[in-house]
Protein backbone atom coordinates (compact mmCIF):
# COMPACT_ATOMS: atom_id res chain seq x y z
CA UNK A 1 0.00 0.00 0.00
CA UNK A 2 1.10 3.52 -0.77
CA UNK A 3 0.30 4.68 2.74
CA UNK A 4 2.64 2.18 4.43
CA UNK A 5 5.29 2.89 1.78
CA UNK A 6 5.13 6.60 2.54
CA UNK A 7 5.45 5.92 6.25
CA UNK A 8 8.44 3.62 5.75
CA UNK A 9 10.16 6.15 3.51
CA UNK A 10 9.48 8.86 6.08
CA UNK A 11 10.77 6.67 8.93
CA UNK A 12 13.92 5.90 6.90
CA UNK A 13 14.50 9.59 6.14
CA UNK A 14 14.05 10.57 9.78
CA UNK A 15 16.40 7.72 10.80
CA UNK A 16 19.08 9.06 8.42
CA UNK A 17 18.41 12.56 9.75
CA UNK A 18 18.85 11.39 13.35
CA UNK A 19 22.19 9.72 12.49
CA UNK A 20 23.24 12.94 10.76
CA UNK A 21 22.37 15.03 13.85
CA UNK A 22 24.38 12.67 16.10
CA UNK A 23 27.37 12.83 13.71
CA UNK A 24 27.07 16.63 13.64
CA UNK A 25 27.00 16.77 17.44
CA UNK A 26 30.10 14.55 17.82
CA UNK A 27 32.28 15.75 14.92
CA UNK A 28 32.97 19.39 14.05
CA UNK A 29 32.68 19.94 10.27
CA UNK A 30 35.26 22.75 10.62
CA UNK A 31 38.02 20.32 11.65
CA UNK A 32 36.75 16.85 10.78
CA UNK A 33 36.98 15.54 7.23
CA UNK A 34 34.13 13.07 7.36
CA UNK A 35 31.65 15.67 6.03
CA UNK A 36 31.87 16.40 2.31
CA UNK A 37 32.74 19.98 1.33
CA UNK A 38 30.12 22.07 -0.43
CA UNK A 39 30.36 21.10 -4.15
CA UNK A 40 29.82 24.71 -5.25
CA UNK A 41 32.66 25.97 -3.04
CA UNK A 42 34.88 23.02 -3.96
CA UNK A 43 34.44 23.52 -7.72
CA UNK A 44 34.24 27.33 -7.98
CA UNK A 45 35.64 28.75 -4.74
CA UNK A 46 32.43 30.72 -4.19
CA UNK A 47 30.27 30.42 -1.09
CA UNK A 48 26.78 29.11 -1.74
CA UNK A 49 23.78 30.10 0.45
CA UNK A 50 24.21 26.86 2.42
CA UNK A 51 27.96 27.10 3.05
CA UNK A 52 28.66 26.95 6.79
CA UNK A 53 25.26 25.45 7.62
CA UNK A 54 26.72 22.16 8.90
CA UNK A 55 29.22 24.10 11.07
CA UNK A 56 26.34 26.32 12.26
CA UNK A 57 24.21 23.30 13.24
CA UNK A 58 27.23 21.74 15.00
CA UNK A 59 27.66 24.93 17.05
CA UNK A 60 23.90 25.11 17.76
CA UNK A 61 23.98 21.52 19.05
CA UNK A 62 26.66 22.70 21.50
CA UNK A 63 24.66 25.79 22.47
CA UNK A 64 26.98 28.35 20.83
CA UNK A 65 24.43 30.57 19.15
CA UNK A 66 26.96 33.33 18.47
CA UNK A 67 29.40 31.10 16.59
CA UNK A 68 26.51 29.44 14.73
CA UNK A 69 25.28 32.89 13.66
CA UNK A 70 28.75 33.76 12.36
CA UNK A 71 28.90 30.55 10.31
CA UNK A 72 25.56 30.94 8.51
CA UNK A 73 22.98 33.44 9.81
CA UNK A 74 20.37 32.42 7.23
CA UNK A 75 20.45 28.80 8.40
CA UNK A 76 20.02 29.92 12.03
CA UNK A 77 16.98 31.99 11.02
CA UNK A 78 15.40 29.33 8.78
CA UNK A 79 16.08 26.33 11.03
CA UNK A 80 13.00 26.76 13.30
CA UNK A 81 10.73 26.96 10.22
CA UNK A 82 12.37 23.98 8.50
CA UNK A 83 12.14 21.98 11.74
CA UNK A 84 8.47 22.83 12.13
CA UNK A 85 7.80 21.92 8.50
CA UNK A 86 9.47 18.52 8.90
CA UNK A 87 7.85 17.75 12.26
CA UNK A 88 4.36 18.77 11.08
CA UNK A 89 4.88 16.70 7.90
CA UNK A 90 5.80 13.67 9.99
CA UNK A 91 2.93 14.16 12.48
CA UNK A 92 0.41 14.53 9.62
CA UNK A 93 1.80 11.38 7.94
CA UNK A 94 1.47 9.40 11.17
CA UNK A 95 -1.77 10.76 12.63
CA UNK A 96 -3.61 11.78 9.46
CA UNK A 97 -4.79 15.09 8.04
CA UNK A 98 -6.41 17.39 10.56
CA UNK A 99 -5.31 15.40 13.61
CA UNK A 100 -1.71 16.58 13.59
CA UNK A 101 -0.16 20.00 13.53
CA UNK A 102 -1.35 22.57 10.97
CA UNK A 103 0.57 22.25 7.72
CA UNK A 104 2.97 25.06 6.89
CA UNK A 105 1.34 27.08 4.11
CA UNK A 106 3.01 30.27 2.89
CA UNK A 107 1.36 32.56 0.34
CA UNK A 108 3.14 32.48 -3.03
CA UNK A 109 4.51 36.03 -2.53
CA UNK A 110 6.35 34.95 0.61
CA UNK A 111 7.90 31.95 -1.11
CA UNK A 112 9.11 34.14 -4.01
CA UNK A 113 10.54 36.62 -1.49
CA UNK A 114 12.29 33.78 0.33
CA UNK A 115 13.74 32.53 -2.96
CA UNK A 116 15.03 36.03 -3.76
CA UNK A 117 16.52 36.34 -0.25
CA UNK A 118 18.38 33.02 -0.65
CA UNK A 119 19.81 34.01 -4.06
CA UNK A 120 20.80 37.54 -2.96
CA UNK A 121 22.30 36.16 0.26
CA UNK A 122 24.38 33.72 -1.81
CA UNK A 123 25.69 36.60 -3.94
CA UNK A 124 26.23 39.00 -1.01
CA UNK A 125 28.42 36.65 1.01
CA UNK A 126 30.92 36.51 -1.86
CA UNK A 127 31.27 40.28 -2.25
CA UNK A 128 34.55 41.67 -0.87
CA UNK A 129 33.34 44.85 0.89
CA UNK A 130 31.93 45.73 4.31
CA UNK A 131 29.27 45.00 5.60
CA UNK A 132 28.15 42.17 3.29
CA UNK A 133 31.52 40.40 3.58
CA UNK A 134 30.49 39.62 7.20
CA UNK A 135 28.03 37.09 5.72
CA UNK A 136 30.83 34.77 4.56
CA UNK A 137 31.16 31.66 6.77
CA UNK A 138 33.08 32.55 9.96
CA UNK A 139 33.81 36.14 8.87
CA UNK A 140 32.10 37.64 11.93
CA UNK A 141 34.50 35.75 14.21
CA UNK A 142 37.49 37.60 12.74
CA UNK A 143 36.23 41.08 13.58
Amino acid sequence: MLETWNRRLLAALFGIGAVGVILLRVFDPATSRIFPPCPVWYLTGWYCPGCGSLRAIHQLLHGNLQVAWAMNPLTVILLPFISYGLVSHAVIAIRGQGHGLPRLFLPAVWIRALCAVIVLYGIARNLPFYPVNLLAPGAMLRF
Partner: protein
Amino acid sequence: MFCPQCGASTPDNAVVCMQCGRNLQAAPPPPLQAAPYQVTPLPTPGVILPPGATVPNYLVFAILTTLFCCLPAGIPAIVYAAQVNGKLQAGDLAGAQQASKNAKLWCLISLGLGLAVVVIWGFLVLAGVLTGISHQN
Protein backbone atom coordinates in the same frame (compact mmCIF):
# COMPACT_ATOMS: atom_id res chain seq x y z
CA MET B 1 -13.29 21.29 11.34
CA PHE B 2 -9.89 21.26 9.70
CA CYS B 3 -8.82 22.83 6.44
CA PRO B 4 -8.25 20.02 3.88
CA GLN B 5 -5.54 22.08 2.18
CA CYS B 6 -3.23 23.07 5.06
CA GLY B 7 -4.69 21.18 8.03
CA ALA B 8 -5.26 24.30 10.13
CA SER B 9 -8.08 24.25 12.64
CA THR B 10 -10.89 26.47 11.39
CA PRO B 11 -14.29 27.51 12.84
CA ASP B 12 -17.14 25.31 11.59
CA ASN B 13 -18.85 28.20 9.82
CA ALA B 14 -15.67 29.61 8.18
CA VAL B 15 -15.98 30.40 4.47
CA VAL B 16 -12.27 30.41 3.74
CA CYS B 17 -9.32 29.00 5.71
CA MET B 18 -7.64 31.72 7.78
CA GLN B 19 -4.22 30.22 7.13
CA CYS B 20 -4.12 29.38 3.43
CA GLY B 21 -7.20 31.11 2.01
CA ARG B 22 -8.70 27.93 0.58
CA ASN B 23 -12.46 27.97 0.03
CA LEU B 24 -13.98 25.71 2.68
CA GLN B 25 -17.53 25.58 1.36
CA ALA B 26 -18.56 23.19 -1.39
CA ALA B 27 -21.31 25.56 -2.57
CA PRO B 28 -20.74 29.30 -2.99
CA PRO B 29 -21.99 31.32 0.01
CA PRO B 30 -25.52 32.74 -0.32
CA PRO B 31 -25.59 36.30 -1.66
CA LEU B 32 -26.15 39.11 0.84
CA GLN B 33 -29.74 40.26 1.16
CA ALA B 34 -30.89 43.77 0.33
CA ALA B 35 -27.67 45.08 -1.15
CA PRO B 36 -28.39 48.63 -2.36
CA TYR B 37 -25.84 48.40 -5.15
CA GLN B 38 -25.12 45.25 -7.09
CA VAL B 39 -21.35 44.83 -6.85
CA THR B 40 -19.58 42.30 -9.03
CA PRO B 41 -18.78 39.46 -6.62
CA LEU B 42 -15.08 38.86 -6.12
CA PRO B 43 -13.91 35.37 -7.04
CA THR B 44 -13.49 33.40 -3.82
CA PRO B 45 -9.87 32.46 -3.22
CA GLY B 46 -8.84 28.83 -3.21
CA VAL B 47 -10.03 25.76 -5.06
CA ILE B 48 -12.43 22.99 -4.19
CA LEU B 49 -10.58 19.78 -3.40
CA PRO B 50 -12.10 16.43 -2.45
CA PRO B 51 -12.01 16.01 1.34
CA GLY B 52 -8.61 14.91 2.62
CA ALA B 53 -6.80 15.72 -0.64
CA THR B 54 -3.91 18.18 -0.68
CA VAL B 55 -1.52 19.55 -3.26
CA PRO B 56 1.92 19.37 -1.60
CA ASN B 57 4.31 22.16 -2.58
CA TYR B 58 7.50 20.48 -1.23
CA LEU B 59 8.72 23.89 0.00
CA VAL B 60 10.51 22.52 3.08
CA PHE B 61 12.28 19.89 1.02
CA ALA B 62 13.15 22.44 -1.65
CA ILE B 63 14.80 24.70 0.95
CA LEU B 64 16.56 21.75 2.57
CA THR B 65 18.02 20.54 -0.71
CA THR B 66 19.00 24.10 -1.66
CA LEU B 67 20.86 24.66 1.62
CA PHE B 68 22.32 21.20 2.24
CA CYS B 69 22.77 19.76 -1.20
CA CYS B 70 24.05 23.21 -2.13
CA LEU B 71 22.82 22.87 -5.67
CA PRO B 72 21.24 25.27 -8.13
CA ALA B 73 18.59 22.58 -8.73
CA GLY B 74 17.00 23.61 -5.42
CA ILE B 75 16.12 27.07 -6.76
CA PRO B 76 13.66 25.84 -9.46
CA ALA B 77 12.11 23.61 -6.76
CA ILE B 78 11.41 26.72 -4.63
CA VAL B 79 10.05 28.59 -7.67
CA TYR B 80 7.66 25.71 -8.45
CA ALA B 81 6.65 25.56 -4.76
CA ALA B 82 5.65 29.23 -5.05
CA GLN B 83 3.67 28.40 -8.21
CA VAL B 84 1.78 25.62 -6.37
CA ASN B 85 0.57 27.98 -3.65
CA GLY B 86 -0.06 30.83 -6.09
CA LYS B 87 -2.20 28.64 -8.36
CA LEU B 88 -4.06 27.16 -5.39
CA GLN B 89 -4.90 30.67 -4.21
CA ALA B 90 -5.99 31.60 -7.73
CA GLY B 91 -8.19 28.49 -7.98
CA ASP B 92 -6.19 26.68 -10.69
CA LEU B 93 -6.14 23.11 -9.38
CA ALA B 94 -4.69 21.43 -12.50
CA GLY B 95 -1.92 24.03 -12.72
CA ALA B 96 -1.14 23.58 -9.02
CA GLN B 97 -0.87 19.82 -9.44
CA GLN B 98 1.45 20.23 -12.44
CA ALA B 99 3.64 22.70 -10.49
CA SER B 100 3.62 20.29 -7.54
CA LYS B 101 4.95 17.52 -9.81
CA ASN B 102 7.68 19.82 -11.10
CA ALA B 103 8.62 20.90 -7.57
CA LYS B 104 8.93 17.24 -6.54
CA LEU B 105 11.02 16.45 -9.63
CA TRP B 106 13.50 19.29 -8.95
CA CYS B 107 13.69 18.33 -5.26
CA LEU B 108 14.60 14.78 -6.30
CA ILE B 109 17.17 16.01 -8.87
CA SER B 110 18.76 18.23 -6.22
CA LEU B 111 18.70 15.42 -3.63
CA GLY B 112 20.14 12.94 -6.13
CA LEU B 113 23.03 15.24 -7.08
CA GLY B 114 23.69 15.97 -3.39
CA LEU B 115 23.71 12.26 -2.53
CA ALA B 116 26.04 11.56 -5.47
CA VAL B 117 28.52 14.09 -4.06
CA VAL B 118 28.27 12.51 -0.59
CA VAL B 119 28.87 9.01 -2.02
CA ILE B 120 31.84 10.16 -4.13
CA TRP B 121 33.28 11.97 -1.09
CA GLY B 122 32.80 8.79 0.98
CA PHE B 123 34.81 6.78 -1.58
CA LEU B 124 37.56 9.44 -1.59
CA VAL B 125 37.77 9.37 2.24
CA LEU B 126 37.90 5.57 2.17
CA ALA B 127 40.62 5.64 -0.51
CA GLY B 128 42.57 8.18 1.54
CA VAL B 129 42.32 6.06 4.70
CA LEU B 130 43.40 2.91 2.82
CA THR B 131 46.35 4.76 1.25
CA GLY B 132 47.35 6.02 4.70
CA ILE B 133 47.25 2.51 6.15
CA SER B 134 49.27 1.00 3.30
CA HIS B 135 51.94 3.74 3.62
CA GLN B 136 52.29 3.15 7.36
CA ASN B 137 53.36 -0.47 6.90
